[in-house]
């Protein structure tokens, strides 16, 4: 509206001016060459003279002095001054302004600009997201936002990511941020039930097509997020989807194909079969020689007997004429060849995506529509993901005061996965690294029949069994939101949004009667339907007015109600008549379950902002939430924030400091909360699952604290934003402190009570940190621009108070294998690894050594400290911290004419990771029938390799390797080229020949290069710092083309 008034004024006044020449031209965006409508052109020094571009970006200015200078500007673009120099045609390409302080950003319940917003927030624009070859956008955010850590549990296509904004603020409740799409909180995390069955997740966020995203704002401090109240303590991720641009309709088509031929890094690469045979033999010889007092000859014979016992049936036999490994010879019918399981189970993954988007806008209507198809065939042959998404964003003005906005997104995805943990039978990755010998073949050597028995130690024949099961998770997600904005007065807007977010996940799981998971039931099929509905109704009244030119006031009042409900239906059939039919209908025995759960919340919210002369800003917010997840007494919580900022650069005393182009100080303090994860955590419940003899059976299942309450976060934030040398260098330095109190904790209780633990508000955690974001234009001229940015964060996350000061020992929940042991202890990290301190290997004997860390009588001294051979004698202690000292990203962009190269690195310095696989694949003699890693082969102790890092292998059931200890803890430092993007805009003169307005070809690579301090497994670990047998991530090479019409 303002713009059109200006335009009228400009035109009216322009006509009155004196002039000599007429100038025409087109204003386009340098980003994609599209025309910019409504750009303003002013004549420098001539008051009131100028023009605006039309829908095609064309402009005409009559009677301009030939030596005049024209000023071209448009919001969000860098203003350019161009001398006329007597030219009649001037075409201008405007550069988008990514660093300017008046950049519009989406914030809680509205928009703001970077220069005026008083909270801590980071914006990631569309360019960083669009080409990343990933089904979900989270991977594109890695390293882009200071203070935010993104981890992925698994490299399976379509699995969930985990995001931590400013550390860990809760022990029991969620640490995941709130996701808000176009102003409406939405479902996130894992959808469906499959994780309970086969430890594979389905990411609800995968229903968002990354190409539909216009920008992402991450809200970090209380001032930014307190308006979201009880859901905001872990930060808020605001996603804005695209809108149309005024002008001609744009049709965009994009296609890309990516391949992942290999893993991104080493992942416990297996030793060769011959090396494994040697280790196996050696392990039994050592047992005989050193622990059973047998001769070399007898020990060797016994070791050979073990080998023969296991592998004769597979067509191999073993001899060792001189009773040592040197003469160990493999004979038998299959001698000389081994089966290649890696080849049988893995493939080059292929990722392809096709996007078609049509968008446009007129003065009254704005639309963006898209349809996209994505398909990913994972590295592991049994993993497939495909998705089709459609989106319509439509805004329609009706009359002058009413505006309707409808956003509809539909996504249908299908994921076929597999068991992704230390589940011994079902995980192809684990099988190849720990269970499947090259001497195991899919067929019997004598009969050629498929081998169906267990090979040994939970190794199954996947070539056979992969045809005996199937599963999929089909997700249909439908999100629709309808907003009405009523401009009651120019200063007073009422906005009401009703949103419906529904996801319907159909999980299917089948095991044939021959499959080891189906045999006891003669075949088994499970169908589960999980329908989750989130209804949000939110109404806000927004008042904005400027008084006496210098006093800007904004007030927001609102009311919100939210209902979440999940309906679950499960049907299971067993005793199946035929392997051809995988349906419950055909089953002899039926079992069913159906129930629902959910929660509700009502909230009142308010915010007030005041700004004096665009120099001093203050704001305050208040929100009151009431949630069904808490008892009536404790259900209501008040959350608030205050914040202020000061534009120091606008002060008079700064006018002489030329090299500082902008400088702003901001500070905030606020309180927000976290709800318990459990819907009914405050209720002591009796369940009726314990059916007995076809009668219902009741069991007390929980012991609850009725006074269960909110977790409360007190966050303060102080930031300095600066721009140097005309904004060539910009940056933010931010420090924060977050005290999380009344934390919910499952307090372990005596099991004599009948329970393991009870949920209480007891703990306190402190997170404090410093975040730095720096961005600079190193070279900037007409043909060449080179810019670089860096983000760096340091977070210290400490447990400050525990129930009765009592330590809590807990295990990482990932994968259900209790892989890492942690301790919550006052004054220690929130991710303090707790276990036995391994003292390495005794040089002369190859035995495990352990530091005692107690007053027991030592067996020996290691490095001057009391140590023992027997881990049972040693005490546990805190071994290290998972939190890194510093983490972040480095991004650089090079643009030369039509060519662009963008690199983004992520890095981590300090902190430990925990190896959850080496207890299996670098074992010193517990699981005999398993295969070992290359690392184990290279680094195990032998009389010839006395300086070895790993102990001697002895087949006496040594449990040393099973202890959660510092042996499995490694430095987590790494740097990785997370994304690389090389793009080339095909010259217009070529594209226009085929009526294409813009064409771009690109190459995008993911995880192409990595350096890690510990090189055995991928350094991108999960949010608990561990890496186990989940499928690792791969190196992806993507080629794409994007066409605009």
């Amino acid at each position: 509206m303002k713009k059109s008034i200006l335009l009228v004024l400009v035109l009216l006044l322009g006509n009155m001016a004196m002039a000599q020449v007429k100038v025409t031209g087109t204003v386009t965006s340098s980003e994609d060459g599209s025309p910019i409508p409504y750009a303003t052109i002013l004549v420098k020094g001539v008051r009131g003279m100028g023009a605006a571009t039309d829908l095609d970006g064309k402009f005409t200015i009559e009677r301009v002095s030939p030596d005049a200078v024209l000023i071209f500007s448009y919001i969000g673009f860098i203003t350019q001054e161009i001398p006329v120099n007597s030219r009649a045609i001037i075409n201008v390409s405007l550069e988008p302004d990514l660093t300017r302080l008046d950049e519009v950003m989406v914030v809680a319940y509205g928009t703001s600009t970077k220069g005026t917003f008083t909270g801590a927030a980071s914006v990631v624009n569309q360019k960083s997201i669009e080409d990343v070859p990933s089904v979900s956008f989270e991977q594109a955010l890695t390293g882009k936002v200071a203070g935010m850590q993104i981890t992925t549990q698994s490299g399976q296509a379509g699995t969930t990511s985990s995001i931590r904004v400013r550390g860990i603020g809760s022990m029991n409740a969620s640490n995941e941020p709130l996701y808000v799409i176009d102003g409406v909180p939405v479902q996130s995390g894992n959808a469906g039930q499959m994780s309970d069955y086969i430890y594979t997740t389905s990411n609800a966020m995968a229903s968002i097509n990354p190409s539909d995203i216009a920008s992402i704002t991450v809200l970090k401090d209380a001032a930014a997020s307190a308006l979201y109240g009880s859901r905001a303590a872990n930060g808020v991720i605001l996603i804005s989807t695209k809108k149309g641009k005024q002008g001609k309709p744009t049709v965009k088509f994009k296609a890309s194909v990516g391949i992942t031929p290999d893993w991104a890094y080493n992942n416990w690469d297996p030793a060769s079969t011959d090396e494994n045979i040697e280790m196996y033999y050696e392990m039994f010889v050592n047992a005989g020689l050193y622990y059973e007092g047998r001769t070399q000859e007898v020990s060797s014979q016994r070791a050979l007997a073990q080998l023969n016992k296991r592998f004769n049936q597979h067509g191999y036999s073993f001899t060792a004429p001189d009773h040592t490994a040197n003469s160990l010879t493999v004979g038998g019918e299959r001698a000389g060849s081994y089966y290649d399981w890696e080849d049988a189970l893995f493939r080059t993954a292929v990722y392809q995506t096709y996007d078609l988007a049509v968008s446009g806008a007129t003065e009254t209507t704005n639309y963006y529509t898209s349809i996209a198809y994505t398909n990913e065939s994972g590295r592991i042959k049994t993993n497939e993901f495909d998705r089709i998404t459609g989106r319509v964003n439509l805004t329609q003005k009706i009359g002058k005061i009413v505006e309707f906005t409808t956003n509809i997104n539909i996504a249908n995805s299908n994921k076929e996965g597999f068991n992704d943990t230390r589940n011994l039978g079902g995980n192809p990755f684990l099988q190849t690294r720990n269970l499947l010998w090259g001497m195991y073949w899919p067929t019997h050597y004598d009969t050629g029949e498929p081998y169906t028995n267990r090979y040994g130690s939970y190794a199954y024949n996947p070539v056979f069994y992969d045809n005996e099961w199937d599963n999929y998770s089909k997700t249909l997600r439908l999100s629709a939101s309808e907003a009405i904005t009523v401009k009651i007065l120019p200063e007073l807007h009422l906005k009401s949004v009703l949103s419906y977010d529904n996801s319907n996940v159909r999980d299917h799981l089948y095991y044939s009667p021959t499959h080891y998971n189906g045999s006891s039931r003669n075949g088994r099929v499970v169908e589960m339907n999980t329908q989750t509905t989130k209804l949000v109704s939110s109404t806000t009244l927004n008042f904005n007015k400027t008084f006496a030119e210098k006093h800007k006031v904004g007030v927001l009042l609102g009311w919100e109600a939210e209902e979440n409900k999940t309906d679950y239906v499960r049907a299971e059939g067993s005793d199946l008549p035929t392997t051809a039919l995988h349906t419950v209908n055909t089953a002899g025995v039926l079992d069913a379950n159906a129930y629902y759960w959910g929660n509700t919340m009502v909230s009142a919210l308010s915010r007030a902002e005041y700004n004096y002369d665009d120099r001093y800003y203050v704001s305050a917010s208040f929100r009151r939430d009431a949630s069904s997840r808490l008892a009536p007494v404790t259900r209501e919580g008040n959350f608030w924030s205050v914040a202020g900022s000061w534009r120091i650069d606008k002060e008079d005393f700064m006018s002489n400091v030329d090299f500082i182009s902008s400088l702003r100080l901001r500070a905030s303090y606020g309180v927000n909360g976290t709800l318990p994860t459990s819907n009914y955590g405050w209720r002591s419940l009796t369940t009726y699952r314990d059916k007995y003899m076809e009668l219902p059976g009741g069991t007390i299942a929980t012991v609850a604290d009725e006074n269960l309450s909110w977790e409360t976060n007190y966050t303060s934030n102080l930031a300095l934003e600066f721009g140097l040398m005309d904004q060539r260098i910009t940056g933010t330095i931010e420090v924060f402190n977050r005290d999380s109190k009344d934390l919910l904790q499952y307090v372990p209780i005596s099991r004599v009570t009948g329970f393991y633990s009870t949920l209480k508000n007891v703990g306190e955690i402190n997170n404090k940190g410093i975040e730095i974001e720096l961005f600079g234009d190193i070279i900037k001229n007409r043909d060449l621009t080179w810019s670089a940015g860096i983000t760096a964060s340091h977070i210290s996350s400490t447990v400050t108070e525990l129930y009765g000061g009592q330590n809590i020992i807990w295990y990482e929940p990932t994968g259900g294998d209790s892989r890492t042991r942690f301790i919550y202890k006052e004054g220690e990290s929130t991710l303090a690894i707790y276990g036995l301190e391994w003292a390495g290997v005794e040089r002369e004997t190859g035995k495990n050594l352990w530091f005692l860390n107690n007053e027991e009588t030592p067996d020996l001294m290691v490095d001057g400290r009391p140590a023992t051979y027997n881990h049972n004698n040693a005490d546990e202690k805190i071994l290290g911290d998972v939190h890194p000292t510093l983490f972040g990203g480095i991004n650089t962009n090079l643009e030369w004419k039509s060519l662009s190269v963008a690199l983004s690195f992520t890095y981590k310095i300090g902190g430990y990771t925990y190896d959850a696989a080496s207890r299996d694949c670098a074992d010193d003699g517990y699981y005999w029938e398993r295969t070992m890693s290359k690392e184990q082969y290279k680094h195990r102790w032998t009389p010839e390799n006395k300086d070895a890092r790993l102990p001697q292998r002895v087949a006496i059931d040594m449990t040393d390797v099973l202890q959660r200890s510092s042996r499995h803890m490694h430095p987590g430092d790494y740097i990785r080229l997370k994304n690389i993007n090389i793009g080339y805009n095909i010259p217009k003169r070529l594209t226009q020949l085929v009526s294409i307005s813009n064409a771009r070809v690109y190459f995008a690579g993911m995880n192409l290069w990595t350096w890690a301090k510990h090189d055995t497994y991928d350094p991108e670990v999960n949010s608990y710092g561990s890496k186990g047998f989940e499928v690792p991530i791969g190196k992806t090479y993507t080629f794409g083309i994007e066409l605009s019409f």
Partner: protein
Amino acid sequence: MKKNKIIFAIIGILLLSSCEDFLDVKPSNSADSATSILTVDDAKVAMSGIMRNMTSYNYYGRNFLIYADAKGGDFAIASAGRGLDGLYQFNHSQTSGSYSGYWDHLYQCILQVNNLLENIEKIEAAGNGTNQLLEYKGQALTARALIYFDLVRLYGKPYNMDKTSLGVPLELKVVDAAAQPTRATVEAVYNQVVADLVAGAPLMSKSIQKGYINYYANMAIQARVYLHMDNFTAALAAAETIINDGVYSLYDNDKWYDSWSNEFGSESIFEIAMNENEGDLGGSSLGYYLLPLGHITGASGWFMASDYYLDRLNEDPTDVRWSVMAEDETSTDVEPRFGSCMKYVGGHDMKGDKGKASATNVKVIRLSEIYLIAAEAALRLPSPNKIKAKDYLNEIRKRAPALEPATEATITLEMIIDEKSKELFTEGNRYWDMMRLGWQIELNDDFIQPAISIPHRDKIIDRTFYKTILPIAQDEIDANPAIGEQQNPGY
């Protein structure tokens, strides 16, 4: 503006609608514990829940039975690492191999029983007691006695070895979440077990209660408990009550094998139901654990009979109890070895007792055991009654038709205990007899081929070995430091 008015009206209605109703979201699959047992019918539901909890793999569903055979010398393993072999190897410490599932689960059962008993008292106090309610009260008291009896044997020294030593925490009410209970003496626990049994018995009917506890199940547990307390007079009295009342009858030799493919046979005094989609453990059921390796998919050959057991049974190659044994993985044409027991898959055709191998009931107490208890008690009375002893023994011993019946002159305690082993193989008996009697246990380590060394115990042990009772697990000590002071000696 008309449109705006409508919008304001909608908002107004939403604002005024009751927040409290909107916010009262109750679970759809569970009820408030405080009010879940208010009537006799509710008590029945709770009782069913207790029985189902007893079918857990941690208890009578599997591990509690395997415990006694694996540790008692009747079982052997062919290879280490297949699962639960830590029991056989006595690989226990408070941090690893603590097998705390027993402790955790049995106390979970105790909670359910105590909760039911408390609520029954409330119903009675409100004047709503009925005979049926008394029945549930009797069942609950008896269940509590059985669970404490099992707990004190797992964690405490045998009663006749050192009854003043520590048993287990003895809680008779629902325990507060903050409590840190400590251990009572073995004697105190036994006294409570007896008190509960004595209080419960008269409340229950004498009719057969399939799948639940009745008067005779109570008497049978009394017989077991008194035998452990060396109170032979009381043990004999309890056993004879059952025998003389004649509600249950012994299987004839030609019916013995079939009894394993039938539910609730004539000997079943207390049998817990393992139904499909209930307690049925599928591929990890007790039945599967005892199948020969690879017999069907999923059968991993966890446990089989030891050479000593087979030698014992082979005193009579025509013994009817051979009928339920199958060839194990080491069996060859030249040297067949019938080491695998098919009791829990319904015999050789593996149809269980309801059509499915793994859904086979567990017979917790059979009449055969009561005869053998009676025989032992009679033999060990202050003034032994050898006539009764041999008569009771011979009723079972005749299942080995080729063996001479025992006589007053030939009967020995060893004969009775051996007969128990033969008859009750895989039924969770042997170890407890060895502990109670203080006899030596020899474990069949040489059966494991190729041989391994077992560093956790000697080949021959007796109850003076500290690992014959389990450690209190680290997790319990972490949450309940007071009990850390009461760890079993040696751990």
